[in-house]
């Protein structure tokens, strides 16, 4: 996730202080962990330097001055370009599980056991996400569904691999 462009997009909805921006981000996108204040201000500082945002107003307060940021035309163009560009699909080729399975076969350990343990762990997480989804709003549902579909794909791979273990063992040991 590009934090810079996400903050620019949020600023495009309305000018905001750094604190409000962090809250808006956390509310919508921080599914697992909230954004650190330091990250927000460091990113805003970079965007300011690059002319993508500007300080619309400085308001004195009891503590440090509060700056209200607004997005510039260049910032809007930057967000537009980011939204329009496709994300590179994850190649999923660095597969730790595949490595474990092959090593188990090479060393005479139970590859079935590895797949069974992993299946149980995947399903445990899927149950947890399903509960969260069931109790949550539409945003929670969509965020959890994204994770659930990926976990489901992993599980299908686990099943397929379990069904092909004998062939794989022959191939691995024959090399």
């Amino acid at each position, binding site marked *: 996730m590009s934090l810079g462009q996400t903050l620019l997009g949020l600023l495009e909805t309305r000018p905001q202080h750094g604190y409000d921006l962090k809250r808006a981000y956390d509310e919508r996108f921080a599914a697992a962990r909230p954004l650190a204040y330091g990250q927000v201000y460091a990113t805003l500082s970079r965007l300011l330097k690059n002319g993508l945002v500007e300080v619309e107003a400085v308001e004195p307060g009891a503590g440090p001055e509060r700056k209200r940021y607004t997005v510039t035309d260049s910032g809007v163009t930057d967000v537009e370009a980011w939204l329009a560009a496709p994300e590179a699909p994850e190649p999923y080729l660095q597969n730790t599980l595949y490595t474990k399975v092959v090593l188990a076969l090479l060393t005479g350990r139970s590859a079935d056991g590895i797949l069974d343990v992993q299946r149980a762990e995947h*399903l445990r997480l*899927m*149950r947890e996400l399903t509960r969260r989804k*069931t109790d949550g709003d539409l945003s929670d549902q969509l965020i959890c569904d994204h994770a659930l579909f990926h976990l*489901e794909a992993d599980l299908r791979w686990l099943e397929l691999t*379990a069904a092909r273990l004998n062939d794989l063992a022959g191939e691995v040991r024959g090399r």
Partner: protein
Amino acid sequence: MNRPASPALPDRLPGDPAPPLLAGSGLRKSFGLTRALEDASLSLYPGEVVAVMGPSGSGKSTLLHCLAGVVRPDAGTIEYGGQDLVTASDPRLSALRRSEFGFLFQFGQLVPELSCLENVALPLRLGGWSRRRAERSAAEWLDRLDVGGLARKTPGECSGGQGQRVAVARALITGPRVVFADEPTGALDSLNGERVIRMLTEAARETGAAVVVVTHEARVAAYADREVVCRDGRTLDTGARG
């Protein structure tokens, strides 16, 4: 049959010595030369939802049919409420299926000539309820599953997802202690499938019914409390309750 839905039963807690409601052990079943079950076991505790997973031909549907008293195993034991289902008479099994078990299949379980309301009321009518009383209860169940507007329609006039929700109502209307669901979302798209499994598990938990759901879909199994995996006619109980 003339009993209300069972009161909600608490989930089994770790260390709780409560005996299983239904326990199948060492089950074997062949159809001709085909061995469907080799050594399958499954214990179901009151009020829990268990998913039976596994590839096609792994024996998961046969296991469900054995546990439900639909198919008699060649060997093994099945205990339900102190009764041995393997040796129980056919009339006894039939009575049990009608009064204590609920069933949900992939499709084709609703009587096409009857309205949705009549379909849902049917198990109560077979149990001797008056038409008026049975249909009043059926209407409540249809409302509960958000398909109250389909009461006068026939199953053929419903979408797949709507039909399955009507079938859920029919499976639960007698207040069964166990619901057996065989690929209940298999013919539905993922959105409708999830809606059906969610409604089934929520309604079952509210009434205290335990559920055994056979599925090959992990996202459906994730609505259960735990899963049992079938492979080559054998069960692998992960024992996980997450």
